[in-house]
């Protein structure tokens, strides 16, 4: 029950967020959503990564994008969930079932689908597939890669963290030690060092693959953050999915003057009221926007293909400003943002 309530809250909040800054990507043809009567005969299939709906992380974010497209375009959708510890052939079969069932486009959430998608895309040349967080299939014509420049947004929140830190000591809590999360770490470190080159950045990952529990272990997040606070950190960036709530708790327990930074969606809007005021900002990775844009392009009959990169320039990556406390740092962050977009600052994706 709790999970459902949380899910509704996340969905509601994310919809607000979309309404607030969705102007950039919708190119004036939003009339379909206004009436709600325009029905499209597009059927969308979506295969989640392990965790599925309710993970308070990128699966949920993909779900939000899907829900928005569903209510706006009146499309048929089918969502399939993954099981923990499954093999490539199980993932393959899930995509195949969707393609066979007449779903087009079919969206695969997460890089783990890359190998299986490579095989299934060949079997169904008339179906357009989308995959989030992978561009290794960029050259396959019926696969659309939806990828994000997480390091850019992490750079900005790193700079904000360094500005906000009084101790000159900040922390990075990663969910699971994978190349994907290392991109967040890399950006955060570079951003913090761009403001204060002597800053100390503590880096901890909650679990190592194949143990992906680190994305959903608030207790581990809390003790790890507590350890960082004890070692002098006063700003901590949680790139750890559902474990972030534990980091927020530890920061709130440490009291005023300590800040947490959220990830993926605007966690200031979704966190418990007891901790939300401690969430200075969140690094926004708009998986929902990418899913929505992709479906919209299919509904419009001009499906997006190739590699679709989401970064600071198209607001697919951003930082949130819903907590007023971040106002003091916005000028600096926006200046850095301009420099990243113009290419004056190059952010490396590896730590």
């Amino acid at each position, binding site marked *: 029950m709790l999970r459902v309530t949380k899910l509704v809250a996340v969905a509601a909040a994310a919809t607000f967020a979309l309404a607030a800054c969705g102007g950039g990507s919708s190119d004036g043809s939003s009339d379909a959503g206004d009436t709600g009567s325009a029905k499209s005969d597009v059927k969308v299939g979506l295969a989640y990564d392990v965790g599925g709906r309710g993970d308070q992380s990128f699966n949920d974010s993909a779900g939000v994008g899907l829900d928005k497209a569903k209510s706006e375009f009146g499309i048929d959708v*089918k969502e*399939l*969930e993954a*099981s*923990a*510890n*499954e*093999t*490539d*052939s*199980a993932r393959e*079969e*899930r995509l195949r*079932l*969707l393609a066979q*069932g007449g779903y087009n486009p079919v969206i695969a959430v997460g*890089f*783990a689908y*890359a*190998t299986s998608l490579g095989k299934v895309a060949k079997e169904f040349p008339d179906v357009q597939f989308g995959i989030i*967080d*992978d*561009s*290794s*299939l*960029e050259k396959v014509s019926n696969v659309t*890669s939806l*990828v994000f420049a997480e390091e850019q947004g992490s750079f900005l929140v790193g700079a904000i963290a360094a500005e906000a830190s009084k101790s000159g000591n900040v922390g990075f809590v990663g969910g699971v*030690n*994978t*190349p*994907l999360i290392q991109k967040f770490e890399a950006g955060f470190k570079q951003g913090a060092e761009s403001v204060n080159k002597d800053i100390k950045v503590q880096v901890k990952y909650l679990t*190592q*693959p*194949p*143990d992906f529990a680190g994305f959903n272990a608030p207790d581990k997040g809390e003790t790890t953050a507590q350890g960082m606070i004890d070692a002098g950190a006063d700003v901590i960036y949680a790139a750890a999915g559902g474990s972030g709530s534990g980091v927020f708790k530890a920061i709130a327990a440490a009291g005023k003057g300590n800040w947490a930074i959220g990830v993926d969606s605007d966690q200031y809007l979704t966190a418990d009221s007891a901790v939300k005021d401690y969430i200075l900002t969140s690094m926004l990775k708009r998986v929902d926007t990418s899913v929505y844009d992709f479906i919209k392009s299919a509904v419009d009959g001009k499906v997006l293909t190739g*590699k679709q990169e989401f970064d600071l320039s198209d607001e697919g990556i951003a930082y949130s400003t819903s907590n007023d406390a971040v106002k003091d740092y916005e000028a600096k962050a926006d200046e850095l943002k301009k420099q990243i977009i113009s290419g004056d600052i190059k952010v490396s994706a590896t730590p």
Partner: protein
Amino acid sequence: MNADTVRRVGLSLAAPALAIILSLAITSAVLAAAGNDPFDTFKQMIEYAKEPRTTAMIINGSVTYYFAALAVAFGFRMNLFNIGVDGQYRLAAMLAAAVGGAVSLPPILHVGLILLVAVLVGGLWAAVAGLLKVYRGVSEVISTIMLNSITTALIAFLLTTDKLAVQAEGSNNIGTKPIPASGQVPGIGLVPDSPLKVYGLIVLAVIVGFLYWFVIEHSRFGFDLRAAGRNEEAAVASGVNVKRMILISMAVSGGIAGLVGMPQLLGSSYTYSLDFPAGIGFTGIAIALLGRNTALGVAIGALLFGFLDNSSQILDLEGVPKEIVMITQGVIVLSVVIAYELVRRYRIVAQQREVGRRLSEPPAPAAGNDKTPQGAQA
């Protein structure tokens, strides 16, 4: 085959049959309570399983499970609980994949080398737990669980781009260097009309299953193993070196565990990457329990679990949560334990009744014309 044998076989089949019926009943109740028609659900699963591709997937899944369950069962026969199969096969698969990707050899040698590395790594890793038990008295339950965690850390340490891993352009996944064609095992078209082939290593599974049966049931070693497993003191008294047996059986169990990842590695993925399936070792424990640690029973259990895992994929598409099969699997394991206990008690009661009946039989009449010797019917 006399009536007694029939009864014995019947009784030993009764427990798993009882467990499966019970779990089907509970699953049906859960399905019905959630508003789904249980018969329709099972029908869908069976229909889907009959499609050639699904059948091949079920067999492939079972081959992997079979190795895992045999590894656990081998330990069980010696009264050793090897919970570390999970860590043993992951470490074995990772190192075997790294070796396989690094060398180039003629086809059969290449495959042989990869399998050898896998068996050695699995065996040696399990032997650590064996040594700890023999020389330090550490329970293998504790040490193998710990070794699972150490495995995870070790793989995380080794599977980085500056050590054993490579990262494909544009991918967020990392894995060992792909094994070239000479180290791959081609599939067998065992299922007619299926575009998916059955893992070539199914042959190895059959061979290992046969060896398991032969060694346990028909060799001196197997006799010592079973004896030591049932009653350590008695085995020592009859001259069995129990310490040696513990070490050897841990290593053999780990060696079989080393093969768990091989069908997937050599028949499908050709690399050990972040999404290499984990957790199969734990499924193996459930299947070993279900299959009563016999080669044939475990094979049937592996097929059942393979069926449940793969045919459930269709359920999500039809609006039935596929997690329902996890309930089925969980209940099977629980009810197997209960069913064996029930059957065991029934056996004891039946035995007592038999003894009681014979004791209370009126003694043979003392009249001299009855020449039937006492106990001839026994």
